[in-house]
């Protein structure tokens, strides 16, 4: 039932913007050996708007993949399609396949709640609950698992340590999370996601509201986390993508334009459209 609701038929051709035809066929210059996430012919519609257009993309396990592109190109939509956050948007429909560990997340037997436990999402703006630091991290754990007080304490501490936040908050665990700085709040959100031990982390412009020091801390954290998990980051910041990502995908008007090793994409992009975007000639 859910599948039929999600997989609507394609809208009439009037929905296609004419400039989309100028986007060249996608060029994938990287061979992904062990894909944690893979989209096949993935399309997403918001009503008649075709936001993601037949995107084929493989995301490397235990690596950082950046998705770049101008505003409205479908980066966040693609990211949210991975853990089915688009389900919460009215009139949003998805076709094609999106495989996480080889299983189509839009398949009939997939529980979105369990999927989101496996694939965490960090938003652009830190969004801690209006509760204590401790409760923020413990909340998801208590939702998914039965634990004793001691076990919960251990999980909270481990998650905060993993998010490089423990030393800064260990003496204020029972203060409101809203009193933390922006960077600390964002790392708290990451700790909250890590506490339920996801295998993949989706990050939607996680540093856009942070200063350079807080940004550097999140980037350091991502380097640590990628040793054990798969990270997909959407970013408007070209330097950030260049610094942290192993692979980078460029989307334009909902289409994949170029996908390659980050170093290659920023040093010698193959598509003129990519070159023009990353050098700021449009966007």
């Amino acid at each position, binding site marked *: 039932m859910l599948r039929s609701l999600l997989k609507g038929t394609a809208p009439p051709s009037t929905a296609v913007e004419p400039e989309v035809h100028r986007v060249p066929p996608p060029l994938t210059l990287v061979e992904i050996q062990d894909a944690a996430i893979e989209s096949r012919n993935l399309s997403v519609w918001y009503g008649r708007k075709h936001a993601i257009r037949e995107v084929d993309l493989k995301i490397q396990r235990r690596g950082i993949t950046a998705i*770049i592109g*101008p505003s409205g190109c479908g980066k966040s939509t693609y990211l949210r399609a991975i853990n089915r956050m688009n389900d919460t948007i009215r009139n949003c429909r998805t076709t094609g396949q999106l495989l996480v560990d080889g299983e189509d997340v839009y398949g009939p037997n997939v529980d979105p709640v369990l999927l989101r436990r496996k694939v965490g999402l960090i938003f652009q703006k830190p969004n801690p609950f209006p509760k204590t630091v401790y409760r923020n991290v413990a909340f998801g754990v208590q939702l998914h698992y039965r634990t004793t007080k001691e076990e919960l304490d251990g999980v909270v501490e481990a998650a905060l340590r993993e998010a490089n936040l423990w030393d800064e908050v260990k003496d204020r665990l029972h203060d409101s999370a809203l009193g933390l700085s922006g960077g600390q709040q964002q790392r708290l959100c990451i700790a909250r996601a890590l506490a339920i031990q996801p295998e993949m982390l989706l990050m939607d412009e996680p540093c856009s509201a942070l200063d350079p020091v807080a940004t550097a801390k999140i980037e350091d954290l991502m380097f640590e986390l990628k040793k054990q998990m798969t990270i997909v980051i959407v970013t*408007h910041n*070209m*330097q950030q993508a*260049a610094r942290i990502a192993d692979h980078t995908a460029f989307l334009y008007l909902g289409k994949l334009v170029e996908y390659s090793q980050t170093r290659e994409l*920023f*040093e*010698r*992009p193959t598509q003129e459209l*990519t*070159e023009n*975007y*990353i*050098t*700021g*000639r449009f*966007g």
Partner: protein
Amino acid sequence: MPQAAERKALERGLRSLNENMTTLAELSEIAIRKAVDGFDRLDPGVADDVFTLDQEIYALQLEIEKTCVDLLALHAPVARDLRTITTSLKITTDLDRIGRYAKDIAEVTLQFRGREPNHLRNTGSIPQMTELAVRLVDKAIRAFVARDAESVRHIQEDDDAVDLLHDRAFQELVDKMKSGAMAIEVGARYILVTRYLERIADHAVNIGQRVVYMVTGETVPRVRAAERSKA
């Protein structure tokens, strides 16, 4: 991705860089042309011009380096912009070295004090080598100015001819010195000039290969002449 205003600032910087690079290339080429012309005629009057050019080249090189560092620090360029800036940084060194070798040739010319009765007869393969080396510099510089990778993709092969002439000139000069037909001091000066010309051609090759990278992003592999001839 740079914003529109930032992009304009970067474009301005790149335009200024390109103008300075073109001037630097022209100055280097003028320096080497003047130096070899002075050497051909053993005209010590040319030396001052070459020394002045060398100083101008050095000053412009410093200015270009500063522009490149500013552009890198302030705009974090990528793709073609990044390749243009890094290539310019590398090429300035080659152009500066060409200017320095021009100065060295002018100094050798001065050492002859305009007196070497057998100059034309002594030089053997040197005039031909000079012509090829200068032509190579001209070719590399034209490619840089026109952003023409194809014309210099095989510039290393052109340099083989200069290397061959260098070996031949060396042997000619050694033979003459051995037979007593040429004073050791005079022969040593000619050998120095052939060495400078050979290095100038090498720097022209560097420039050509970096132009290929700047335009296409490809790195041209260094292949030894012997291996190229086998292939």
